[in-house]
């Protein structure tokens, strides 16, 4: 079996799981298990496919499909294999998680939800492996529609419907731009096949237009600011396992799209492309995390934080594109490496955090941070998993987020010595914004963990919460292991990702890792050893213990008192800092940036209102069409039919006469 066959097996298993789940809809419990196990098995097959493709050669397969739009190519090159692996791991964790998590919804149509979840995973797998633009679009739209149904699962809530509508609007607007981009490709090359498009010589103007269309179209789906407005609503409305999948991997299919079209197919030859990507990266990184800080709803907070992370990924892609345009292979390699690494890391830690938020929601029935508090003592495993996710996303060493941000810094640093002055100005500024975003992200996750898991319980349900069920905790810890492995195993992971980054046209392969070290192609520029950081940190933890032991400090023991010190007053849990007061000084400091939020929201609400008006118009114009066009036509047809009946005598001789007359008329017309 090769990688493609495994992939087809995976899609088949997912499809069977989806259908079985739909058929068993009448028993929620059964369909929950069938969909979950189907998703897990399908994901395992996809993971095997990804590993096969990464260790052996890239594989392709053409399926014969009787449609005239070119060939149905499935292709597993490095980039596709990486994305497949990412989707597979997250698909596995989310499916395992869903089995217990969805228990609370047993009164609903879980069969339908399971159907759409498995279809969603299958479509993501096909999107990242199909090598033909037409089929790409088909799968892309099916993926969007499947995820839309996941978003509107709790459809009796008004905000859910609103979130779903906004999601649909932005996703389809983006989808339309992508479609136009592909049609322009078709117009320029006469083919939908990626292989043909890659070879084609398109005019610069056409390339520029395609780049803009694809970048904005995919950017909308990736949640790049200011096109991110659908994300907080959609992610918080969807069930936790679905929002984990959407935030961690569906977003990466859009990153895949940007890499595939703008870099792989178009070959990022213009400098301003990279500059534009860096610009949007900067906006997303800063605005995303600032807006996240103002949130109290845990899932909305995580959604905004995803905007920030897309910004960081875009920093990497932008640096890589700048490197390609200015013919600096090291910059290109480091930029794409950083982007791929961060994309991979983000799917692990953001998936983990969404699953953690779902576990809290499962036990508390609330996503409001002000209703939580003290959960680390009642849900210790969830708390630990969430803390590791928080440390990873805040780029704290020795976790995985730090490694990818380190590579992003190194890419920007290398780009900073570019001969081009504009690049030399903007690359260091992007690095500073990355540092600012990092500091803000640390604050954000201190707020998130601190108000949910530390301190006193702020509500009745929080004080009675229990640990999440074993299946949910297990799936979180699968991702925790992933976060640790991607951090400590950096010297092993980096060469694989560098291989993918080097496969883009114009990039070249260079060593970036050896034994326990990683370095940005030039070891003299910088060097990092994650295993040693971890070992040294753990080892140095012993120093204070030894010092205390030397002074006999452990003999003194520890006394537990019920309350913290409050200057002699009686302690109330209200005295602790809440989620909404934690960011208050920040709101003052960055007041002007927070004013942007309504400014961004307004045109979108206006667009939504316009779309609604348009729909109204169509609805109202429907009767008009009926009374002016449809009904008169129908009446005319009826009238003619009635009168033509007169010709029908039922007599064979009369019919013969008709034929002869017709022939005579025709002969006269032709020969005159």
């Amino acid at each position, binding site marked *: 079996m090769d990688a493609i066959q495994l992939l087809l097996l995976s899609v088949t298993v997912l499809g069977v799981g989806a259908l079985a789940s739909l058929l068993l809809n009448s028993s929620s419990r059964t369909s929950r298990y069938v969909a979950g196990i189907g998703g897990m098995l399908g994901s395992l097959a996809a993971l095997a496919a990804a590993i096969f493709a990464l260790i052996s050669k890239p594989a392709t397969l053409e399926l014969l499909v009787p449609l005239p739009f070119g060939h149905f190519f499935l292709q597993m090159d490095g980039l596709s294999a990486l994305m497949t692996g990412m989707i597979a791991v997250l698909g596995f964790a989310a499916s395992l998680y869903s089995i217990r998590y969805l228990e609370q919804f047993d009164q609903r149509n879980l069969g339908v939800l399971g159907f759409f979840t498995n279809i969603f995973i299958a479509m993501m797998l096909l999107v990242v492996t199909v090598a033909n633009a037409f089929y790409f679009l088909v799968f892309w739209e099916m993926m969007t529609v499947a995820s839309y149904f996941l978003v509107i699962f709790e459809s009796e809530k008004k905000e859910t419907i609103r979130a779903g509508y906004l999601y649909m609007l932005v996703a389809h607007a983006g989808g339309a731009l992508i479609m136009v981009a592909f049609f322009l490709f078709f117009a320029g090359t006469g083919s939908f096949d990626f292989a043909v498009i890659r070879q084609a010589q398109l005019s610069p103007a056409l390339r520029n237009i395609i780049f803009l269309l694809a970048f904005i179209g995919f950017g909308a789906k990736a949640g790049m600011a200011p096109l991110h407005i659908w994300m907080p609503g959609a992610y918080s409305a969807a069930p936790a396992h679905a929002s984990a999948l959407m935030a961690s991997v569906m977003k990466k299919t859009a990153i895949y799209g940007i890499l595939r079209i703008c870099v792989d197919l178009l070959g990022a030859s213009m400098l301003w492309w990279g500059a534009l990507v860096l610009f949007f990266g900067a906006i997303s990184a800063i605005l995303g995390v600032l807006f996240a800080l103002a949130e109290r709803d845990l899932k909305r907070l995580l959604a905004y934080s995803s905007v920030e992370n897309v910004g960081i990924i875009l920093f990497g892609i932008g640096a890589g594109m700048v490197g390609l345009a200015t013919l600096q292979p090291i910059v290109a390699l480091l930029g794409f490496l950083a982007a791929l690494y961060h994309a991979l890391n983000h799917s692990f830690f953001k998936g983990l955090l969404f699953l953690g938020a779902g576990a809290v929601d499962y036990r508390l029935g609330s996503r409001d941070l002000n209703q939580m508090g003290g959960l680390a003592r009642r849900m210790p495993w969830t708390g630990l998993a969430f803390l590791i996710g928080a440390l990873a996303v805040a780029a704290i060493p020795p976790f995985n987020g730090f490694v990818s941000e380190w590579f992003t810094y190194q890419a920007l640093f290398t780009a900073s010595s570019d001969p081009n002055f504009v690049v030399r100005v903007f690359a260091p500024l992007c690095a500073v914004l990355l540092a*600012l975003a990092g500091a803000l992200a640390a604050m954000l996750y201190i707020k998130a963990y*601190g108000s949910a898991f*530390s301190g006193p319980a702020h509500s009745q349900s929080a004080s009675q919460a229990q640990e999440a069920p074993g299946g949910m905790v297990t799936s979180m810890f699968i991702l925790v292991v992933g976060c640790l492995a991607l951090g400590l195993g950096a010297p092993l992971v980096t060469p694989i990702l560098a291989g993918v980054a080097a496969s883009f046209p114009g990039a070249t392969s260079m060593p970036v890792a050896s034994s326990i070290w990683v370095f940005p192609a030039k070891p003299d*520029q*910088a*060097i990092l050893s994650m295993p040693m950081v971890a070992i*040294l940190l753990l080892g140095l933890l012993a*120093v204070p213990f030894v010092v205390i032991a030397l002074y006999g400090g452990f003999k003194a023991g520890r006394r537990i*008192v*019920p309350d913290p010190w409050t200057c002699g007053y009686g302690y109330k849990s209200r005295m602790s800092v809440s989620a909404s007061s934690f960011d208050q000084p920040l709101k003052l400091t960055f007041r002007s940036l927070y004013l942007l939020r309504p400014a961004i929201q307004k045109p979108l609400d206006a667009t939504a209102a316009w779309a609604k008006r348009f729909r109204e118009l169509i609805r109202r114009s429907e009767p008009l069409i009926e009374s002016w066009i449809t009904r008169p036509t129908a009446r005319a047809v009826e009238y003619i039919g009635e009168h033509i009946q007169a010709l029908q005598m039922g007599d064979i001789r009369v019919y013969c006469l008709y034929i002869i007359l017709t022939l005579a008329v025709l002969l006269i017309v032709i020969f005159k």
Partner: protein
Amino acid sequence: MTGETSFTASMIVIGLLQALLILLLAPLFSGFSRVLRAKMHSRKGPSIYQNYRDLVKLMKRQEVVAEQAGWVFHLTPYITMACMLLAALLIPIFSVQSPFNQVGDLILVIYLFALARFFFSLSGLETGSTFGGIGARREQLLSVLIEPVMLLVLFVIALLSGSTNLGIISRQIATGQTPFYTSVWLGMLAFAFAAFVEMGKLPFDVGEAEQELQEGPLAEFSGRSLAVLKWGLYMKQMVLVALFLAVFLPFGSMTTASLPGIVLAIVAFFLKVTLFYFIVGILENAMARVRFVKASAVTWAALGAAILSFVFYLANV
């Protein structure tokens, strides 16, 4: 791995020596600034060794902890100290080579501070104490304002040396390969300011009521935890000074490892740190306090200096 990134026995010894020295001397320099403050207030003040006595005494005391505090709270003092020790291994203090340069570069050092701060702030929220919570959020706001400044300055200096390896930066400044351009001077100014704020000095902190503001999370610690945490914070101040000296004033450090060289380097380091603490002490006590919400108005000056340094770097002067 050869040349700049070699990992020799002598460097390991020097690294461990650096960490040990920071560990042992940090309370002394904090004591020095206490004495200095007392003298400026025309008080008699404590002995310069008072911090050691405090630490030893605290370590023998029973620890009193609020019930709500979890393992994050209990681990914080140890993590803080471990981070500072690791930073002390990475920063070139005695020689112009980062002793453990195989482990990481200046970006790692900056993020080690972030790791310590993450746990420090979280420990303030762990107990549900009001002081802890407010201290945590102030700590975070300052880091948001200061961290980009530090990174920009270090980035500019690193660009001048073509490397983010602290040892290479230090050597190039020490040997004059990176001349003292205007950008370096401005960067020095901005970084000194940033270090001043990071050390928990005025204009945002009150010397005498340290648990009031930035050190709010300390309020709930007691006994050995308080001792280790305070020690860790003393070390943080000294590590910051060492980082400043390594990047901007690496004079007197060894270029090749030798016994007389190391003695000379230790003496030079001691004098430089004393001078830095002296200047900081004078400034700290000569300054008015600023309302915390005005913090950004003051730190913009540091950011401005850092950006100017960057502009001068671009202009090559």
